[in-house]
């Protein structure tokens, strides 16, 4: 009843008859990366807009921001995927629904949208926290110089807020990458999905999962490495040091 290890399995042809198992895993990793990058780009964009909306003095914009955030972070991601994939096309007019369903790579687009919105809600909170962590005087200083509200956000508040939240962006990006795996529930064959498929067909469970875990670790490392670079670009001479000094005293 003991488990039969077989590490050579990676070089055997997989079910599709064309690629080895290793190649299918790597393809899966590519889908993971593509989904994650697209979804996170969407999340950054929308999240910034919503995060800014939540800090404006305009009441209705704040309201819209709250609704967006609460909506997308209080429903499990998996359920959101189902809603986008199975429910949305049924709610649309018939032709639009059909078009949506027959879109090639529909799972990919669905996963990008679902993940993008889910993480946009969380990015919005991150951006908001970044903006709120700035001294209140910064906004006033910008406005006191005659900058309009949009100018104040663009030239004064956001450049600082983004710098402050770089670490939080990193961890959101990592979490977004991991969450792409939920898309296997709608049939996207990303990394976890291809490991699962390999396991189903080769029955080498632990080899498949070990390989997937290793690939995830590598993707993580790359992201962390790249974001370190971003972080060092974002450093402002004198700024961090002052902070550090303060925390010592």
């Amino acid at each position: 009843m003991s488990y039969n290890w077989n590490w050579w399995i990676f070089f055997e042809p997989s079910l599709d008859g064309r690629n080895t198992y290793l190649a299918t895993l790597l393809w899966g990793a590519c889908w993971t990366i593509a989904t994650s990058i697209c979804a996170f780009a969407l999340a950054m964009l929308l999240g910034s807009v919503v995060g800014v909306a939540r800090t404006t003095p305009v009441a209705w914009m704040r309201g819209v921001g709250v609704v967006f955030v609460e909506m997308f972070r209080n429903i499990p991601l998996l359920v959101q995927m189902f809603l986008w994939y199975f429910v949305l096309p049924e709610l649309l007019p018939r032709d639009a629904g059909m078009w949506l369903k027959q879109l090639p790579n529909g799972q990919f687009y669905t996963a990008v949208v679902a993940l993008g919105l889910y993480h946009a809600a969380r990015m919005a909170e991150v951006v908001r926290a970044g903006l709120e962590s700035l001294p209140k005087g910064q906004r006033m200083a910008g406005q006191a110089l005659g900058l309009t509200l949009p100018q104040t956000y663009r030239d004064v508040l956001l450049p600082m807020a983004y710098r402050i939240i770089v670490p939080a962006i990193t961890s959101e990006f990592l979490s977004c990458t991991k969450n792409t795996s939920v898309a296997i529930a709608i049939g996207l064959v990303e990394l976890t999905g291809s490991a699962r498929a390999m396991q189903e067909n080769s029955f080498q469970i632990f080899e498949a999962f070990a390989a997937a875990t290793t690939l995830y670790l590598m993707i993580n490392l790359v992201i962390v490495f790249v974001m370190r670079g971003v972080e060092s670009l974002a450093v402002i001479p004198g700024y961090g040091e002052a902070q550090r000094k303060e925390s010592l005293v």
Partner: protein
Amino acid sequence: MITLHNVTKSYGKFKVLSNCTTSIAKGEVVVVCGPSGSGKSTLIKTVNGLEPIDSGEIIVSGIRVSDPGTNLPMLRSKVGMVFQHFELFPHLTIIQNLVLAQVKVLKRSKSVAEKTGMALLDRVGLVAHAAKFPGQLSGGQQQRVAIARALAMDPIAMLFDEPTSALDPEMINEVLDVMVELAREGMTMMVVTHEMGFARKVANRVIFMDRGEIVEDAEKEDFFGTPRSERAQHFLSKILVQ
């Protein structure tokens, strides 16, 4: 130049300003003092519309600040403001701090703005630091940059909110010196400060606030000579004891 009439403002039930009335003529220097929480910062911020008011009227150089139709950014560009915590933009170099609003608001060309900026940095003695970031300067230097940044907009009046109270004692004077010079040149100034030495030296009038009211509004000589209200007396005795 600046007129406040019956200005009132509340946060919920709490009245921060009640019926404040005063006016500042061109070239006048007015010092505002009073205990913590008395509404000094709020009052000074209503002047350029950073704090909206509930009722009353504020007129700055003929413009009614509290009117909904007022172009606030335009007004604000004409009134300089200096904050307790400097509020330089930390991601911009010193010269960029001075250039930003000139370009975005006054639509000056970048080269003109930089020239104006350098001239002002020279005036506050900081040309050498133009390429540094705010975090690399001492507090006193940062506050002088903040004053230069406000001056770069060619303001018709300047507002100061406790410009020296976040500074180490050794740096206070380098900032006060710049302000004294500004006053001597005839700038209209409204200054919230506890530095009574400064008030004695350059103020024309002193306004004393307590619990949101203007309790005292007197010529400098009268204020330091025979303050009328008991509260002002009490405050002065506390602050001048040293």
